[in-house]
């Protein structure tokens, strides 16, 4: 009980201090602003937002995707690839002729 009284006293003191320091928002101020709040007028942008939400829900998509074990071959200039193939074969046959490979 004593603890509760102390905490209330502390709260009041803190509120007073904050007001004295020029704090813009105090508990009572918030309550007043709430009371002042009137019924909002019809805002067509709310409907637009709602429609946008529905549209987004329709766009929501998911899938179960199966990957292939096969890897991806990167694009290559076929002429350069052919030149490399020829050079590799030439070197291989030269090595074979020299007895370095079987």
């Amino acid at each position: 009980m004593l603890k509760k009284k102390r905490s209330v006293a502390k709260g009041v003191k803190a509120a007073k201090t904050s007001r004295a320091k020029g704090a813009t928002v105090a508990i009572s101020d918030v309550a007043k602003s709430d009371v002042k709040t009137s019924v909002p007028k019809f805002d067509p942008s709310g409907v637009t937002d709602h429609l946008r939400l529905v549209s987004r829900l329709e766009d929501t998509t998911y899938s179960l995707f199966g990957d292939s074990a096969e890897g991806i071959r990167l694009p290559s200039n076929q002429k350069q690839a052919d030149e490399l193939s020829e050079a590799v074969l030439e070197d291989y046959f030269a090595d074979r002729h020299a007895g370095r490979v079987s």
Partner: protein
Amino acid sequence: MSANPPKRAGGPRVEWPAQRDAPSLPRAAALALVLLNAESRWIHRRVESIDFLDEVRLRRRMSIDFTTPSFRDPTAVDEVLSIEFLPLMVIKREPLNSLDVRDETGSALPVLTRDQNAPIASLLLQTAARSLRRKRVVSEIRELFDELVGNFPGVEAAAIGDEERSLRSQIALARFRFATRRTSLHDLWERPQMQRWLQELSDQFILFVRGDFEAGKRRVLKLSYETTLDQTWTSLGFSFPFRWLAFKLRKAVEALGLIPYSTGFATPSLFDAESYHVEVLAPDQLIVASAKLTRQSKSRETGEKIGPPRIVDEQRSRDRVHLYASGTTPSAAQDALLEAGEYEDAQVEISFALRMTLVAPVLALSGLTTGVLGGGLLLHYTHRTHPLADASAALIVAVPGLFAGWVAPGGHRLVQRLFKGLRLLVFFSALVSFLAAATLVVRLPAGWRSATWQGLAIASAVTTLIATLAFIRSWLCSPSASKGHQVEVFWASVASAAVALALGLSAFPVWETWLAFAVVVLVAMLIGGRRSLRGWENEP
């Protein structure tokens, strides 16, 4: 004192397979490079067949139709090199489940293991580097190639885990990519052909099949393996937890059969042969609502998609789809991709829908429940009559619930998954009819029974509406050829529902319902009899 026993001359000598294969590896590496550089010139056709084993498991079968090219040694007259190790394709560096490779006779062919593959891949890089630079490859670069392809000679496979192998590959690749200018590493990286091989072999390996592949002979090999579907989903603009909710909502709508079940799988083979075919067989009780073979441009640096996918082939409303493409790798297109820093990926997008024969009983059952309740209420308000409040009337009103057991899908897990929502509808309809029946045997205050029936009738009407929409969706997705049979099943379901409805309404002591019951049963008997006679006429 030496621990090793003294060597004896002329003793028994063991030649292990690795030692025996070692001399033929340079040839395997050189020929692999040449063959993989021009796959579409010797592989005529790749045909893939996809079977859905269950909800998430796929069995991919691929037949590869090819003619082995002839490699003639210019220094030896008429000597054609034999191909012992055939590079079938480049594979991601991941374990393959249930891999099986067979030849035309159905005999299994041996596939090289990771440790047998890696030395050939390293030699391939060495061969390419030497031929491109016309210089001997120094040991430092050789070691980097080994790191990149995961070739660690003399090290036990268990000593280096998969993660470490992958990390070391990426570090080796980075050393080439970010090498200082005017160094050998930078020189190699700057050569497009070398860069391509380094990138491809840093996270992929070559699938070699061992056998005797005679030059110039046309062969067909069959390869199959299992893969699983991973769940990936996107939600435009939603953040957690709305994304999760949107995902769940989509799944629920899908399970009710209101939208088709969509999935997809990558098909890189599209670019690796003269022509590519892919077949997908829908499990029993499902139809392929739509299937598309698409190709998608991606950034070579980041892997991100560039632009919308292009549809190569498309089919709709089939039991089995066959998508086809040919000539997908013309050199001009490859050059354009190279200049733009892009590459292409291919995939099949497929959606399944439930067959009408599976949805029709659900519609019949929920329609029957709604009919009994709605009809009962109509009779109650128009004729000021009350249902017979006894056990026999309750039994009659519970008729729809007794049909619930009749509505059951097959054993395929994908079908069960797609039917999950409709199964709930069936359960709900049965529950509604049992509750309605229960109000007839329990003594209730005045007005409670009709109020309960009104509530149940509304709930059942919603169920019927969902089942109707699911049925319309199935109808729209069905192949036109099988619609005739499915229409017969639909009318059979309607006739059964009508008989049961008339029976259900006979719980009301109004002579019109008894008359309606008699007429409906008579019509059903006539239709059934006519169909039976037609069946006999068609007998040989």
